[in-house]
């Protein structure tokens, strides 16, 4: 039941506790419209990675609701594997499968989850590999590629599933500085093509360039959720101002 006008991701009062004493997410409410790029930032331990992992139910949450393309994650009737297959996810540490060649990494879920034939999956995988500029590495294993190359493969692997939205969990945090650009370039291109994206990152340059909105989190709460121009122009909270002054200082 896809709804053309409605938001792709809707979160309402999402709360999560690791233990009765420790609440990681407090009443988080926000949404991501179709084709919108939302950057989530905040100090470490603020819950931003946890929040984004709740969107495809990788992390359970105890209160609130999340809907993706109109489908309620907490509904017992929801086929979570099927829903997850439609949401691409890119991790901080790439998480390519080390024992599989690059092409096999790209084909595995296409074949096992979407039921595509090997030829079909291979054609799709090769096209995406070409798109991220790594065609000549098709036959290699992940351990034989640099971090930046692995992350581009990871993005291609997620795109091979024809996702309706992409989640990025600190995609450049584990990369050497000279490799960050090659990954961001791929993400900028994706954003410009109209992909719905939720990106946890500290790359404020990326946020300025392509984000529509910026969410600032601290201690499990969404402190600011505003248009990019407003956020960079005059963040209302002291906490966000302090955070920005620290990461934009150099």
């Amino acid at each position, binding site marked *: 039941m896809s709804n053309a006008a409605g938001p792709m991701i809707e979160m309402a009062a999402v709360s999560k506790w690791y233990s009765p004493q420790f609440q990681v997410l407090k009443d988080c409410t926000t949404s991501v419209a179709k084709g919108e790029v939302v950057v989530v930032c905040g100090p470490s331990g603020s819950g931003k990675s946890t929040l984004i992992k709740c969107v495809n139910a990788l992390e359970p949450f105890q209160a609130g609701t999340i809907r993706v393309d109109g489908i309620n994650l907490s509904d017992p009737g929801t086929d979570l594997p099927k829903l997850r297959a439609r949401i691409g996810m890119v991790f901080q540490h790439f998480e390519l499968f*080390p024992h599989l060649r690059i092409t096999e990494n790209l084909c595995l879920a296409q074949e*096992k989850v979407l039921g595509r034939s090997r030829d079909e999956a291979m054609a799709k995988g090769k096209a995406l590999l070409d798109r991220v500029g790594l065609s000549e590495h098709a036959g290699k294993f992940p351990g034989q590629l640099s971090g930046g190359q692995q992350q581009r493969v990871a993005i291609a692997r997620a795109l091979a599933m024809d996702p309706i939205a992409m989640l990025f969990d600190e995609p450049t945090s584990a990369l050497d500085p000279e490799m960050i650009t090659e990954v961001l370039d791929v993400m900028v291109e994706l954003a410009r093509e109209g992909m719905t994206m939720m990106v946890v990152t500290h790359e404020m340059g990326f946020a300025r360039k392509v984000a529509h909105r910026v969410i600032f989190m601290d201690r499990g709460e969404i402190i600011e959720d505003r248009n990019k121009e407003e956020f960079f122009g005059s963040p209302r909270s002291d906490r966000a101002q302090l955070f920005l002054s620290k990461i934009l200082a150099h």
Partner: protein
Amino acid sequence: MNYNWNWGIFREPNPEGSGTYLDLLLMGLNWTLATAALAAVIALVFGATIGVIRTLPSRGLVLAGDAWVEFFRNIPLLVQLFLWYFVLPELLPKAAGMWLKTLPNASFWTGAIGVGLFMSSRVAEQVKAGIRSLPRGQAMAGTALGLTTAQTYRYVLLPMAFRIILPPLTSELLNTVKNTSVALTIGLMELTARTRAMQEYSFQVFEAFTAATLIYLVLNASLTFLMRRLERAVAVPGYVTGK
């Protein structure tokens, strides 16, 4: 020491009428190989299953897996074999107990299954450790792609976990072979039992046990060699452990 060395004893006929003394030992080796092979398969199948179960998010399953491991690894192998061989048939309904007692090659089946289950607890421990040693993100990546839990284990976690635990699994395979000798206590005429028989028939104790020692040594050295080749064959190019 007044000992009459006779290395030619192996070519002399044994009093059982089943060929030479060497034939006697080789018959024992056959039972050792058969018992070890079946025990290794049982250890691997049950060990892998229990090891996986202990990493699942279900508390009940984890407890059941833990109970299995604690039961089979905390009781001496010798006591376990006695339990299966002498005690179990008495605890079963009369007909089932009778069937067990009259089973052809009962000591072989009991020995292989007993050693297999004992070793399964150790394999389970290693499979669990292998899975746990993988970055948490690996399972997440599989799940995020839409793979089911079973598919994530089959295609993502287990292929790497087994590669990582191959060296300790080799040790467990060797232990499985060596532990089959305990089955002589329930009457299995495997290599060690045959060696003792040879010593009793011929009084050539040093020759007999020298031969047994060499046979075990060559057998396990060959297994080690094969496992090393397997390790090299499945090594992942460019993969560095310790992430």
